[in-house]
């Protein structure tokens, strides 16, 4: 993706999906996402259940080899067979042998992403076996010859009208099919006949219990039950990571999986099958023999798949991926996924946030590279994952590894001097440019306004777009000649140390210091109005910019420098106040991976989002009267990472305390996500995501309100979407607002 042609074709692919599949994907994923919020809200012990589920998975993966042995012994004792396949070819060879031994003409399948990973259908079809997908969504795709666009609802990109057109063309029914009811009845009838005459039934498994050999299947249609019990031979295919120690371990997963996925408290059927099952075969050749009079000799094969998983288990960064229960919460809560679905946000088999880990582990880094950039690190999936996987971190790690395996950059010589990062040669120029934003900003301020004129000039934008993929449809941030630190140094503190309630370090994030200096000045005045003495020392960029480009070593080095610059202040009892939520999220979340535990804890506990800090002061009795504020109406968009940290209520509460009437957005992300929206290949996607926010803020109830946003890039995105300026909430509290300046 390091050349202009590659960017153009990527942009074209995304544009086509936005036009063809975007609407159906958006409606369905947002429906699932809303359902999830509602369904988990009913669980009193949601957080405890997630931790319990997480602990079970950690333990199971830790002792996986022993569990595989235990499960094998259990299944064999039950009368089944276990085959541990090294890779897809090995698994397919075994499954073909089973089909051949059964003289199988037809095999019916229930939905299984693991069998998609193996491409077992193609392998069996090559032997002349008629493979029939019985999940209605999978069947639609089989008829249409398409790949799933979602790991749980595979045909999510197709509407009722679409499917009706497909079926009417393909099957030419006497009465044309129209409604979902009619389509479902048609499919049930047709598939029912195919299941009845099947020789082998194949299912996946959501969980397998080592102590009982039980296959747990989470479904709603009933096709998995039919596939497993109608024919006399059942083949279950599952990754080794599906094993849990005991039946009792299933409980938290059963409570979480449906809620996390499609927002259902529980799916229609949780099938707990311990094969070979006692249920009789439904034999069309003996239609009049009572079930009770049969004496079936059922056959059961459990095919456990390694295919890279045991190596993932040894990989400290990818291991977490194996805890994934494939519920799709990370996909449904992802703003980019909501716009394009799995046909863009996915690799060879898997799609959505966690797919990066799966694809890197089972298919390799080339497959992960296809879509890894679509994770913006907004972190909205983090709290939604029922097994608490840090999905953005996995995406960052894979991006870092991809950077290291990349080709030598063509324009390396141009940026070497401008990019004091810790990265190896070969990293994509676009990533390097955005990853070194701090250096650009310093240079930009030092040479402003000339730097802004030059950057905005036509030829410069053309070169920026062609060489670095910076979209010329975006307005570039204008650097201020006088930085926030320059301003404060000449102005000095207005609160005497002796009179101060508290003393703080106001973190001069790159954007506030060089571009939106006004919000920094407002923060100083607000803090001083509350008797807080402010210091603005030189502190490096947090590492957010390089981290978002997958430059982990550079971010790691920044973290150390930031900590070194702040540690003494924290020890002196000064609180660290941060305006930009993405930088605060570094201190509170990502630094856990980059700093020693004690340092991380100290900085995390000593740092505050600016409105969170104001809230704390007011709670502790400081008088709010000195703050600015009116009874004006505000439309407020919090910031994705701020919401993941649970901090947005402080802003709304403080604004309300100051007299404002606040309406809050409920979209997952504004779509800008730092540098993402500036990139040529993602500009249109960024605007499509932002459109959901634009719609919320242009309703009659919102369109005349003052627009406020906590994040830099949210402000930029809102500014261009709404064509009116957005402000940081702290600017609404600026005492100067009251004095009518």
């Amino acid at each position, binding site marked *: 993706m390091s050349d202009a042609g590659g960017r153009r074709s990527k942009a074209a692919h995304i544009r086509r999906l936005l036009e063809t599949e975007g609407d159906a994907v958006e409606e369905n994923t947002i429906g699932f996402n809303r359902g999830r919020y509602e369904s988990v809200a009913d669980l009193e012990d949601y957080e405890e259940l997630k931790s319990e589920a997480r602990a079970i998975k950690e333990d199971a993966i830790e002792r996986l080899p022993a569990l595989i042995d235990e499960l094998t012994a259990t299944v064999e004792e*039950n009368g089944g067979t276990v085959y541990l396949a090294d890779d897809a070819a090995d698994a397919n060879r075994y499954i073909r042998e089973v089909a051949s031994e059964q003289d199988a003409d037809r095999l019916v399948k229930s939905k299984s992403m693991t069998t998609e990973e193996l491409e077992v259908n193609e392998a069996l079809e090559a032997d002349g076996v008629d493979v029939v997908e019985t*999940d209605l969504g999978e069947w639609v795709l089989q008829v249409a010859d398409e790949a799933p666009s979602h790991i749980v609802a595979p045909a999510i990109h197709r509407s009722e009208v679409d499917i009706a057109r497909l079926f009417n063309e393909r099957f030419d029914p006497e009465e044309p099919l129209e409604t979902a009811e009619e389509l479902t009845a048609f499919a*049930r009838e047709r598939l029912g006949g195919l299941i009845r005459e099947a020789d082998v039934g194949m299912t996946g498994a959501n969980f397998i219990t080592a102590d009982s050999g039980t296959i747990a299947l989470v479904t*709603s249609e009933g*096709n998995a039950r039919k596939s497993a019990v109608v024919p006399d031979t059942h083949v279950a295919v599952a990754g080794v990571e599906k094993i849990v120690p005991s039946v009792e371990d299933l409980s938290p997963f059963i409570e979480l999986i449906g809620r996390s996925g499609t927002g259902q408290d529980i799916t229609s059927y949780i099938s707990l099958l311990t094969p070979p099952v*006692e249920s009789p075969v439904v034999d069309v050749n003996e239609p009049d023999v009572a079930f009770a009079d049969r004496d079936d000799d059922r056959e059961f094969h459990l095919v456990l798949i390694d295919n890279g998983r045991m190596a993932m288990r040894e990989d400290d960064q990818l291991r977490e991926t194996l805890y994934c229960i494939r519920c799709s919460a990370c996909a449904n809560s992802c703003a980019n996924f909501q716009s394009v679905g799995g046909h863009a946000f996915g690799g060879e088999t898997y799609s959505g946030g966690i797919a990066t880990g799966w694809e890197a582990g089972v298919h390799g880094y080339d497959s992960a590279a296809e879509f890894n950039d679509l994770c913006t690190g907004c972190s909205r999936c983090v709290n939604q994952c029922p097994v608490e996987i840090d999905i953005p971190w996995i995406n960052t790690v894979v991006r870092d590894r991809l950077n290291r395996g990349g080709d030598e950059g063509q324009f390396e010589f141009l940026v070497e001097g401008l990019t004091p990062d810790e990265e190896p040669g070969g990293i994509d120029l676009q990533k390097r440019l955005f990853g070194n934003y701090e250096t650009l900003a310093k240079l930009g301020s030092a040479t402003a306004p000339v730097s802004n004129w030059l950057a905005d000039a036509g030829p410069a934008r053309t070169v920026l777009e062609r060489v670095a993929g910076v979209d010329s449809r975006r307005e570039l941030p204008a650097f201020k000649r006088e930085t926030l630190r320059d301003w404060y140094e000449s102005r000095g503190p207005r609160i005497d140390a002796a009179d101060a309630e508290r003393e703080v370090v106001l973190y001069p994030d790159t954007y506030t210091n060089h571009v939106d200096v006004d919000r920094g000045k407002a923060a100083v005045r607000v803090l001083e109005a509350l008797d807080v003495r402010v210091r603005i020392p030189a502190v490096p960029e947090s590492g957010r910019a390089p981290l978002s480009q997958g430059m982990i070593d550079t971010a790691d080095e920044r973290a150390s420098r930031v900590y070194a610059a702040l540690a003494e202040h924290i020890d002196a009892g000064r609180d660290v106040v941060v305006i930009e939520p993405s930088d605060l999220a570094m201190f509170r979340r990502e630094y856990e991976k980059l700093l020693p535990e004690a340092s991380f804890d100290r900085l995390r506990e000593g740092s505050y989002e600016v409105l969170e800090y104001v809230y704390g002061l007011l709670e502790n009795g400081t008088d709010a009267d000195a703050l600015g504020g009116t009874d004006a109406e505000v439309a407020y968009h919090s910031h994705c990472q701020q919401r993941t940290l649970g901090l947005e209520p402080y802003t709304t509460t403080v604004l309300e305390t100051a007299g404002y009437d606040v309406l809050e957005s409920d979209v997952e992300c504004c779509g800008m996500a730092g540098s993402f929206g500036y990139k040529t290949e993602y500009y249109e996607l960024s605007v499509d995501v932002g459109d959901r926010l634009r719609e919320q803020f242009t309703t009659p109830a919102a369109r005349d309100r003052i627009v406020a946003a906590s994040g830099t890039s949210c402000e930029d995105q809102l500014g261009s979407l709404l064509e009116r300026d957005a402000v940081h909430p702290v600017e609404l509290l600026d005492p100067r607002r009251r004095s009518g300046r």
Partner: protein
Amino acid sequence: MTVDVQTTRERFEESLADLEVPVTRTEPTALESALEEIVREPAIGTPLEFEAVSLPDWIDDAPTPATLEAATTSVTSASFGIADYGSVVLPARPDGSEQVSLFPELHVPVLRESDLVPDMPTAIDRLGPVLRDGGSAILATGPSATADMGALVRGAHGPKAVHVVLLGDGETDE
């Protein structure tokens, strides 16, 4: 103790109401007349696993593949119910109870009020020994459903409707 059972039953009924699944409470002696109200013929079933309660003789309790395909209603016993979710636990037995509960349009699970458990952990604890002994069970919650055809439809590969029958305590002193 009575209070607990009462609360669990109410919770179960409330969960079923949320699922729009009708429930009929009856004493064992009135089961037949209750089923007459609910069942649409042709009807099949498998023998109920409760002492002193059996299916009326107009329900075919020795189904075959042919009658399974032809039936409109099925009546089978559920081992227990889960109040928090409105789920019924359907055993997979050699008499075909699992298939019988799945194929016809309307499924009528019959269970005893005394077999209701409050929540999922209790239900799974109860299933542990059953599954370790080689048994299988389905936690069935409402009718089968799909959203794969572009809108939510009740009745995919399984029943379109479920009607739960709750048996009062009169039938057994255990």
